[in-house]
């Protein structure tokens, strides 16, 4: 009996098709129903799974329970952390557990910006042997890059989100303009719409001294072919001409073209979203959650007038979308590696990703899932996002991200407030070099 179980467990490790997997899961569930339910719990390998709180029509706990029901080898206990809006607390709770190296939690979810830190500290198990290069091509390439640290896959993609451009289809049509592809196009269209008096604001973004400012900065800088850190992640590149030009552009939206109100300097996601769904703005940079709010007649005056596109880029650059979302990780100190991998395989499988998309409204990391007919019917918007996520760009990858991000936030905020873009970014870059050099 126990030999059979080990065999079944190992067979679950390799990449297997969704149908086979579901069939196997169904058989296992059926078998467990026939067996004595009391003995079942004792025979299972117990692991814990810790994640920030996500919910939609279903909760995370329900999804985990579905895994527990689907097979009879592993039992997962779900430990809920605060929601991702309290990201500092989630991070702290995770690190405090991982640093003890007791093997608990066996599997966890992590914000995409923590991956390097978890890997650099040796808390995350490298997953290369379980998910070979061939299996990784099933995910968005930007995500696999973000999950890779020092050439090792240390996280497995779970769900993706990124910055994107929201625009008003009606205003663009009235202005006879196309969806802007470059920042220059965006400025001229926004100016024209503002001049016509049809919208109070041209373009809304997030300039509050907070994590979101780093995202907005990454997007403009990368769309100019620049980067915040050097390619090896060992020194800063915030003082480069390309970065300065990009941040200067953000400054100019407030002070030169005046397509953005100076209020954006104190706005994070929600304050910038409200004027847009209230019908006051032509363009908005935000995450995917805005779409459903914009289409809800209860809180939006722009229902049916909103389109989504990849963010614009500088002439000669490529559109860049700051990569967000949470990814899976396995505790390097886990005592139940096989069970953890089995659970992970199930969680990241196409079937489960589809379930997350349909029930929790979070976007799959496998492009193939976007072609699912049911997803197209129930979440038509998500389908459009495939093109946006292809351009997803990670934020600076370094184990010292937590310190680096504070330096970027402070430096970029100072540049945007004072207008001394070059001097402030160079000062911030020196600070980043100090942090990385330590």
């Amino acid at each position, binding site marked *: 009996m126990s030999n059979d179980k080990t065999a079944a467990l190992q067979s679950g490790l390799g990449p297997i098709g969704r149908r086979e997997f579901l069939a196997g899961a169904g058989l296992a569930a059926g078998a467990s129903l026939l067996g004595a339910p009391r003995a079942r719990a004792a025979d299972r390998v117990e692991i814990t799974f810790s994640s920030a709180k996500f919910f939609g029509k279903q909760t995370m706990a329900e999804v985990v329970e579905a895994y527990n029901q689907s097979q009879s080898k592993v039992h997962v206990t779900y430990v809920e952390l605060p929601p991702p809006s309290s990201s500092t607390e989630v991070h702290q709770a995770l690190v405090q557990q991982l640093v003890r190296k007791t093997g608990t939690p066996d599997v966890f979810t992590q914000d995409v910006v923590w991956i390097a830190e978890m890997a650099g500290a040796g808390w995350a198990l490298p997953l290369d042997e379980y998910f070979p290069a061939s299996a990784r091509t099933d995910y968005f390439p930007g995500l696999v890059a973000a999950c890779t640290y020092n050439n090792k896959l240390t996280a497995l993609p779970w769900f993706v989100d990124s910055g994107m451009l929201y625009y008003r289809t009606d205003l663009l049509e009235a202005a006879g303009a196309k969806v802007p592809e470059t920042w220059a196009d965006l400025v001229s269209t926004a100016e024209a719409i503002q001049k016509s008096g049809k919208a109070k604001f041209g373009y809304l973004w997030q300039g509050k001294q907070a994590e979101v400012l780093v995202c907005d900065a990454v997007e403009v800088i990368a769309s100019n072919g620049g980067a915040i850190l050097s390619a090896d992640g060992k020194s800063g590149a915030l003082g480069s001409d390309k970065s300065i030009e990009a941040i200067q552009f953000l400054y100019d939206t407030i002070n030169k073209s005046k397509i953005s109100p100076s209020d954006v300097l*104190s706005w994070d996601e929600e304050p910038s979203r409200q004027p847009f769904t209230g019908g006051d703005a032509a363009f908005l940079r935000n995450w995917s959650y805005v779409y459903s709010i914009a289409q809800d007649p209860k809180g939006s005056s722009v229902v049916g007038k909103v389109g989504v596109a990849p963010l614009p880029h500088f002439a000669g650059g490529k559109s860049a979308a700051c990569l967000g979302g949470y990814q899976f990780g396995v505790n390097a100190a886990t005592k139940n590696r096989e069970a953890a991998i089995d659970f992970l395989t199930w969680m990241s499988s196409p079937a489960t990703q589809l379930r997350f998309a349909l029930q929790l409204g979070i976007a799959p990391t496998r492009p193939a899932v976007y072609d699912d007919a049911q997803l197209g019917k129930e979440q038509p918007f998500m389908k459009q996002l495939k093109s946006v996520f292809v351009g997803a760009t990670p934020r600076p990858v370094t184990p*010292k991200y*937590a310190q680096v991000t504070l330096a970027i936030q402070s430096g970029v905020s100072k540049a945007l407030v004072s207008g001394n873009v070059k001097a402030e970014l160079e000062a911030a870059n020196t600070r980043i070099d100090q942090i990385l050099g330590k």
Partner: protein
Amino acid sequence: MRLGTVAARKPRNRWPDATPWLLLVPIAVSLGTVSVYPILNGLWLSLRNTSLVSQQDDFVGLLNYGVLLGDDAFWNAWRHTLVFTFVSTALETVIGMGMALLLFEQFTGRSLIRAAMLVPWAMPTVVTSKMFGWLFDGQHGVVNWLLLSAGLIRDNINWYGSVDHALGTIIVADVWKTTPFMALLLLAGLQTIDGSLTEAARMDGAKTWQAFLYVRLPMLWSTLLIAGLFRALDAFRVFDLVYVLTGGGPADSTETLSTLSYKTLFSTLQFGYGSTLSTAMFITEAIIAVGFAVFIVRQLGRAR
């Protein structure tokens, strides 16, 4: 801890002498664990380079303090914290004094108003913060609308997004929230002053303001100082208003010591340097407290 061992050793031969020590054990243990130990541990950590992320944990002596002295971010936060503390405490004391004097007078519905006055103070600060976020919203805030309607400003003011206004706006929110607390303390102080003194002053021909300035105020000094001390120490730790409203921005213009140490300790998990920051905070607070204490002692001495 030492008290405990004394208590354990002595009972056998000299039980009666040990009793007071024994009775002190619970309070010594609880104070020791929740107050003394964390402070000492913080001091100890401030001499180490402990970081969960880089997993270092070595003794580095005064290195952290050297870094601190040259850390612009620290001095920037230190200045904001002092400005916030002094301005908000001063405003709260003056306005609180006025409120206390009003509430001391007899009028119908006084007890109701006294109770209602405490509502701002009883409200969770995060709620206050959100509320002020809306009131001072740069685009749709009531404050801008009122000022515009009154013709005092020509364009909307960007309260939280401009380095010139952000800290001031946070001070206004704090004054609104905590003035009632000051007023209540001062009201209690006023009630301890014998009414016959004011009456006598009046009979001698003192005007209302003279009776206040020469009779009530001198007798209220020690209450004022103690209330000011409480308020200043509390204001020094300001965290929630800043955290919710601006996150320290724009351009670090509202960063305070509490938010900076929070970021260093809990966001970057540098327990060593973070503890150095909190120790610096502790020292500054101690200086403020000693300053007040000197005045209080002098005042009490004069009263005798």
